[in-house]
C-alpha cells in the first residue's frame, strides 16, 4: 500500500509515463537489451526514442494480456453459440420410411421427414409423358436438384424421378417452395404439378419450377428403395 502511495506522487512525464534517462538501453519484448539509444537527430528524436524504450515492454504486456483475454472470451462465447445448432435428439430423427403400396395411381401423399413435408407422387402415364416432352431449355432451373445424383445433373424427367425399371412413375420431392418456404398445393396450376399459394410459383409434373419467383426446382431428398414397395428417405 505504501508503494502505491509513492507511485501516486511520481511526477509523470509526457503522456503520463515515467521519464527515463537518455542513455538508457532500449529493451525489446523478450527483455533483450539493444544498443543505447542516443540523440542523433536532435532533441525530438531522443524524446521519441526514449518513449519507445520506456513503452515497449508495457505495450507487449498489454497486448499479451489482451490476446489471452480475447482467446478466453472466445472460448467462453463458443458454448453459447454452439448450443444453437440442432441437438442430438433432432439429428437422431434423420430417416423416414414410406410404404408405396398404399399410394394409388395419380395420388400425391405427403409424409414428414426432419419436420418437413415430402411429396410422394404416383404419376400417371400422361404426367410422365408431359414431363418428358419438356425441353431443358424451357426450364427456369436446368439442374436436377436431386440429392442422389451429382450436383450438375440436368433436370430431365429421368433425373428427377425414381431410378430403376418401372419406378419412373414415382416422384419424391421436398414439399417446400424454393421461393420462401411455403408448401405448394398439388394438382394445381398450368403445368399440372404444384401451385404455391404464397407467391404464385408453379411447378410441373416433375416438380420443376416453370413460373413465378421461385428460383429452383423442388429438391429431391436423398432416398432409396428398401423393397419394391417401400422407400427410406434420409
Amino acid at each position, binding site marked *: 500500500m505504501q508503494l502505491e502511495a509513492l507511485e501516486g*506522487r511520481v511526477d509523470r512525464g509526457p503522456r503520463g509515463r*515515467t521519464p527515463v534517462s537518455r542513455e538508457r538501453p532500449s529493451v525489446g519484448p523478450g527483455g533483450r537489451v539493444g544498443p543505447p539509444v542516443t540523440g542523433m537527430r536532435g532533441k525530438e528524436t531522443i524524446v521519441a526514442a526514449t518513449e519507445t524504450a520506456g513503452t515497449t515492454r508495457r505495450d507487449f504486456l498489454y497486448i499479451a494480456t489482451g490476446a489471452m483475454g480475447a482467446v478466453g472470451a472466445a472460448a467462453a462465447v463458443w458454448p453459447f453459440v454452439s448450443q444453437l445448432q440442432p441437438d442430438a435428439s433432432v439429428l437422431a430423427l434423420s430417416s423416414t420410411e414410406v410404404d408405396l403400396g398404399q399410394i394409388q395411381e395419380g395420388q400425391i401423399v405427403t409424409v414428414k421427414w426432419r419436420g418437413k413435408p415430402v411429396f410422394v407422387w404416383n404419376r400417371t402415364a400422361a404426367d410422365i409423358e408431359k414431363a418428358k416432352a419438356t425441353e431443358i431449355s424451357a426450364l427456369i432451373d436446368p439442374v436436377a436438384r436431386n440429392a442422389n445424383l451429382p450436383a450438375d445433373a440436368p433436370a430431365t424427367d429421368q433425373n428427377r424421378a425414381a431410378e430403376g425399371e418401372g419406378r419412373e412413375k414415382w416422384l419424391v420431392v421436398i414439399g417446400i417452395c424454393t421461393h420462401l418456404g411455403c408448401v405448394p398445393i398439388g394438382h394445381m396450376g398450368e403445368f399440372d404439378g404444384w401451385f404455391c399459394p404464397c407467391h404464385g410459383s408453379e411447378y410441373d409434373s416433375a416438380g420443376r419450377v416453370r413460373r413465378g419467383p421461385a428460383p429452383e426446382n423442388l429438391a429431391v431428398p436423398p432416398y432409396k428403395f428398401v423393397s419394391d414397395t417401400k422407400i427410406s428417405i434420409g
Partner: protein
Amino acid sequence: MSGHSTFEPKHPALKWFESRLPLVGLIHSSFVAYPTPRNLNYWWTFGGILSLMLVVQILSGVVLVMHYTPHASMAFDSVEHIMRDVSYGWLLRYMHANGASMFFIAVYIHMFRGLYYGSYKAPREVLWILGCIIYLLMMATGFMGYVLPWGQMSFWGATVITNLFSAFPVVGPTIVEWLWGGFSVDNATLNRFFSLHYLLPFMIAGVVVLHVWALHVVGQNNPTGVEPKSEKDTVPFTPYATIKDGFGMVCFLIFFAWFLFYIPNYLGHADNYIPANPLVTPAHIVPEWYYLPFYAMLRSVPDKLGGVLTMFGAIIVLFFVPWLDTSKVRSARYRPLFKQFFWIWVVVCIGLGWLGSKPAEGGYVIAGRILTIWYFAHFLIILPLLGLFEKPKAVPASITEAVLGKSKGGAPASAGVAAPQTKG
C-alpha cells in the same frame, strides 16, 4: 460526488452525439474518472463480481430457456435433454446452477463486508436498503429457479416454501391456493414460477442500477470508514479500481470454474435427479445451502406462525440496521468490541446454516434456538447498546493519514523522478 462530467469529446461525430445524449460522458464519469478511496481492499471487489455473476446468470438462463419446457410432464425430461442432447448443454446448465451458488457466496461476502465496515451508516442508508431489496429478489429468484427442473427437491421445496404462507391467519390458505393456481403444487405453479424466474433477474438488474446510482451519489465507503477529504484520498476508478476489480473477477471465476468443472453437483441434492412425485416426500428434505440459516430459524420456533415470522424477520431486520447501530464510528477497525461481536455473529450465521442442513431433532433444535436468539439479539440489543457503551479507538483524520501513517504523511514527492534507472 460524480457531478457533471469532465469528459470532453474530441471527435466531431462523438461531439455531435454527446451534445444530444451524454452517454459516453456518463460512462466516463462513472467508471473512468470516478474517484474511489485509495485504500479499498479486495473485499470491495465483490460489487463488480456480483455484477458479473448477474450477467452470467442472465446469459446462461436465456440460453437454457431455448431448450427447456415449462410443463409438469415435460420439464424434468427437458432438463435431461439439455444435459445429454444439447451442444454444451451440460456446461450451460451447470454454469447456471453453480452460478446461483456463486452469486450467493459473493453476495454474502458483500453483505458481511458492508456490516463490518459500517457501509450502511449515513449517508448510505438508501444504498444499503436497495442492497437488501436485491438480496430479497435474489432469494425469490433462486427459489423459483430451483423449482424448474421439477425433480423431487424442486417439488417438495416448492410445497414447503409456499405452505409457509398458510401460517398467516384467515387469509393464509387462500394465499397459498393463489400461489399454486390450484390445490397443490402442479403445472400451474410451475408455469408461473417459470415466468417470474425469467422476470425477476431483470428487476434485480433494475435495482442494481439504482444501487450503483445511490453509490455514486454518496461515494464508496472504505476500510477506515472516514470520508475522502481531499484529492489525495482518492484515485481515479480507471485504471485503479477497474484493474483491481478485474483481477478479483478472474480469481473468483477460477473458484467458480473449480465447482463447474470438478464438482458441479456438490452443492445440489441427488434427490433432485428423481422426477417429481406428488405422492412421496423424500426422507430428508433441505433447501439450497444459501437458505439454510433461515430454514434453521424456521424450525427452531415450535409455533407455525411464529416460525414463519421469525424467518422473515431475520431478513426484515437487515433493513433497519442503519438505525439499530447507534455508533458514530463506521469501521469495525476502530471498534474493538463491535469487531468481536461481529465475528461472533458471523459464526452464528454459519452455525445456523450448518444446523439447517441437519435433521430437526434433539440437540440440533436446542442449538438452533440459542443461535436464533443470538442472531436477533445482535441486531436488536448488541448493536444499539454498543454504540452507547463502546469506547472506539482513535479514528484517523484522513484516508491518506491512515494509509501512510502520520510520520510518513509528507513522503518526498520527487522520489520517482530522481530515482536512477538501474534496471531495464
